[in-house]
């Protein structure tokens, strides 16, 4: 187990190194020039050159990348070109909002998805099952921003129950979390349904029924605890999905997390911030997958760590 974790951690570090390299290459070769952005349109060639030198952007690619890595190892993500602040500081100040949304969103996904999956499994093949599965397809196919705007329109604009955007109180988090909850719920309900269907076919359920246990006891006491196990590992993978989709929801709802930070930085070609957020998100994805892989064998001894 310990050896496995060490190996996976080394692998994860290598993957992150690769992510940093590819992002760096992409940002280096792309036609946008951050110096022009900083200097403004009317800057003279001399000003542009001096800014370029100041930022070290006149150096060869490998030197730039090497310096970036050296700083990164010391926890230094560089300075934002435009905000003149440490990127690490910006990310740290934004991260709590994103993590809060992450927890709230996954809670919503589970709260919506799991009951629907269980109901569908118990009514397998009936109308209600088909209806719920169609619903799960709908949620998987819905564009994030359309759901976000729809919820905003109904619950913020028309009904006025929640604020249109922003951050601070419990009311602010409801709509973004529910948006993500609806979108992710289809995925959970389908996994829950198939897991529940498998468990309900198992011998120990037949035994429990044969013992004379009531339907609700069989379902809640025997089937559910076993069927829910695969979901736990899924949450790890879900963290990754969340991290890669955070930009849209945060910008629609004006949620001050790292997604919004990234979106603002992208528009201004503020490369250090883009790099930083990409790396932090990639960390989230890698960690999420690692957690999923570590939890699976604990839950189901048939799965072996390789």
């Amino acid at each position, binding site marked *: 187990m310990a050896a496995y974790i060490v190996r996976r951690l080394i692998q994860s570090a290598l*993957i*992150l190194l*690769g*992510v940093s390299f*590819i*992002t760096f290459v*992409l*940002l280096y070769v*792309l*036609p*946008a020039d951050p110096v022009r952005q900083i200097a403004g349109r009317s800057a003279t060639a001399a000003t542009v050159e001096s800014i370029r030198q100041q930022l070290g952007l006149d150096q060869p690619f490998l030197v730039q990348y090497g310096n970036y890595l050296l700083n990164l190892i010391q926890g230094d993500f560089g300075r934002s070109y435009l905000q003149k602040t440490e990127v690490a500081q910006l990310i740290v100040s934004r991260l709590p909002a994103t993590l809060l949304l992450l927890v709230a969103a996954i809670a919503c996904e589970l709260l919506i998805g799991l009951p629907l999956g269980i109901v569908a499994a118990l009514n397998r093949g009936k109308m209600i099952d*088909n209806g719920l*599965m*169609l619903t799960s*397809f*709908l949620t*998987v*196919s*819905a*564009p*994030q*921003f*359309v759901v976000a*705007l*729809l919820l905003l*329109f109904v619950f913020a*604009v028309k009904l006025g129950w929640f604020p249109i955007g922003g951050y601070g109180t419990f009311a602010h988090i409801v709509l973004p979390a529910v948006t993500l909850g609806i979108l992710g719920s289809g995925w959970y309900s389908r996994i829950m349904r*198939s897991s529940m*269907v498998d468990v309900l076919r198992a011998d120990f359920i037949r035994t429990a029924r044969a013992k004379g246990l009531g339907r609700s006891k069989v379902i809640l006491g025997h089937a559910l605890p076993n069927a829910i196990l695969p979901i736990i590992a899924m949450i790890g993978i879900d963290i*990754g999905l969340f*991290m*890669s*989709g955070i*930009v*849209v929801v945060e*910008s629609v709802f004006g949620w001050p997390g790292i997604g919004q930070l*990234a*979106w603002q930085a*992208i*528009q201004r*070609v503020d490369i250090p911030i*883009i790099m930083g*957020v*990409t790396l932090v*998100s*990639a960390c989230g*994805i*890698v960690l999420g*997958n690692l957690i999923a892989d570590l939890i699976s064998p604990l839950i189901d001894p048939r799965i072996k760590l390789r």
Partner: protein
Amino acid sequence: MADASISPEPMAVPENGPSVLRRLARRKLAILGLLIILICVGGAVFARWLAPFDPYEQFFDGLTLEGAPLSPNENFWFGTDLLGRDLFSRILYGAQTSLIIGLVANGTALIIGTLVGVTAGYFRGIVGAVLMRFTDLMMAFPALLLAICLAAIFSPSLWIVAMVIAFVNWVQTARVIFTQTSSLAERDYIAAEKTLGAGHGRIVFKHILPHLIPTLIVWGTLGISTTVLLEATLSFLGIGVQPPIPSWGNIIFENQTYFQSAPWLVFIPGAAILLLALAFNLVGDALRDILDPTQQGRD
């Protein structure tokens, strides 16, 4: 001379052509999906004849006296947008954008994924290892962030958007194809072919690729849904297909300031995106059940 060649060998693919369609037709949800796709393709192909107005024309009577968009009425069925253009016509032409991107981006992703997956799975060795590690790496990339970044920095056009989407979407296919190819490459009949002196090209094209077709059909269908959603998202952020070319995503982007007073401008194109993505998901899922033997009896 030609007589020297061996008689055509039996097809490697099980004969499931007609039966697939028949089995698809038995699923209500798949029929619903096919119907939506048909309507959408019809709308896109015949947009020129079906559209009541020119999608680019800004009508003088297309705005209220205060300059606000018109709500749906008998003249403009879906209302008009912020510039007084007919929304229905723009939605029809927008279907072209979505489908072109869906096909081009997803086709490219499928080709890249297959190339990488087959090369890594069949040849293995250092090349295979490098390719698969690169795939792992791409899996750890925050995909949407990457796409947004690329699209924002390139000045976006229809084709660049398609390529950006292909660039982030090939990874899943590569993994699935890799797994399948590596298990196929271990089979006895492949070893037999090799002993008989068959070249790599012959083995890959005659004995590997045909077996991958069902998987490619399934992933090709499901992938279009992902692609349509990604295009819509990029266009919604203003970094996808650029106005005035209509795309369902950029119609929402352009009109979002009117979202409180003219919600149809957001929700009609939104519903179109949802329906198209749903349709390809429904059909793709049904195809997976039909074509993938391991999924059989699991529904």
